């Protein structure tokens, strides 16, 4: 069987997976394996970005592919949705469900923040526009942003992740989550308000010596 090109992210997907989908529907295990090989990187990235703290990317990906194979009969290319988009939608919703079933959201304290992240948090919570931490600290910024997002309710977290970190449009988010465009906007607005509240609360906990 010809190797299928791995799909990194859904919107840029050009690979035609239709023949493999058709064969997998008829119980062809090799075609199903080829589909997994092609879509695993995309599903892993989605799971990595939106997973709850205690669930591994592999477990979430396994759950996603289980649902994909269970619902394979429901997929129709005639609907105009490429297969990778359909899988991305299942993956995003699976992550959202996993986040919603999380019993407790992680807590964040100043003392938990390593230096790089604390620097970015200081920049975020400053009353005036302070200069940003030195360049090359993108990883620290990402970790700090992820930590703040993990304190939000599941839907708020996912909507801000998609809007601000993955730069998806409102239309793309509404297609991924099955929400209306206005609901996406309202959720994003509320999520930002909650985030502001969290930042304010954390700022109050900040040790005095950092103010100087």
């Amino acid at each position, binding site marked *: 069987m010809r190797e299928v090109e791995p799909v990194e992210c859904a919107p840029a997907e050009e690979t035609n997976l239709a023949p493999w989908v058709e064969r997998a529907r008829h119980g062809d295990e090799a075609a199903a394996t080829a589909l997994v090989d092609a879509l695993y990187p995309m599903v892993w*990235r989605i799971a990595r970005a939106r997973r709850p703290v205690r669930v591994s990317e592999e477990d979430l990906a*396994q759950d996603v592919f*289980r649902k*994909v194979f269970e619902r394979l009969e429901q997929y129709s290319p005639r609907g105009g949705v490429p297969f990778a988009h359909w899988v991305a939608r299942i993956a995003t919703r699976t992550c959202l469900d996993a986040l919603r079933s999380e019993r407790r959201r992680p807590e964040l304290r100043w003392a938990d923040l390593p230096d790089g992240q604390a620097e970015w948090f200081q920049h*975020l919570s400053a009353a005036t526009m302070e200069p940003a931490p030195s360049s090359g600290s993108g990883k620290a910024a990402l970790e700090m942003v992820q930590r703040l997002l993990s304190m939000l309710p599941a839907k708020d977290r996912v909507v801000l992740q998609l809007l*601000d970190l993955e730069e998806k449009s409102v239309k793309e988010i509404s297609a991924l989550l099955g929400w209306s465009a206005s609901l996406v906007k309202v959720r994003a607005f509320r999520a930002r308000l909650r985030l502001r509240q969290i930042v304010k609360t954390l700022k109050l906990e900040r040790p005095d010596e950092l103010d100087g």
Partner: protein
Amino acid sequence: MNSMDERWNHCARAARGAEKEAPPPVPHGFAQRALRSAHAAAENAALDLWAALSRRALACAAAAFMLAASLLWWQEPGDGIAPPALADEAIEQALWQP
């Protein structure tokens, strides 16, 4: 724009610039496990549906039987009890005899 939003956007831009982690290779036997669990889930769903249908079918059959039996009994009430016509006539005659 609100300055907090501006700073948040700044942080998000820096976060987007972080080097992306490369996904690991597909774990050995991953696709087979996913397929197996999908089949198992589909079978369980079919069994659950069958069990639910069987329970409902049993309940419906019992209700239908009861209904049919009561209708039958309602339509033929005289089988086990003697018709009162003769007795009534005898009483009437006895009463009117001088």
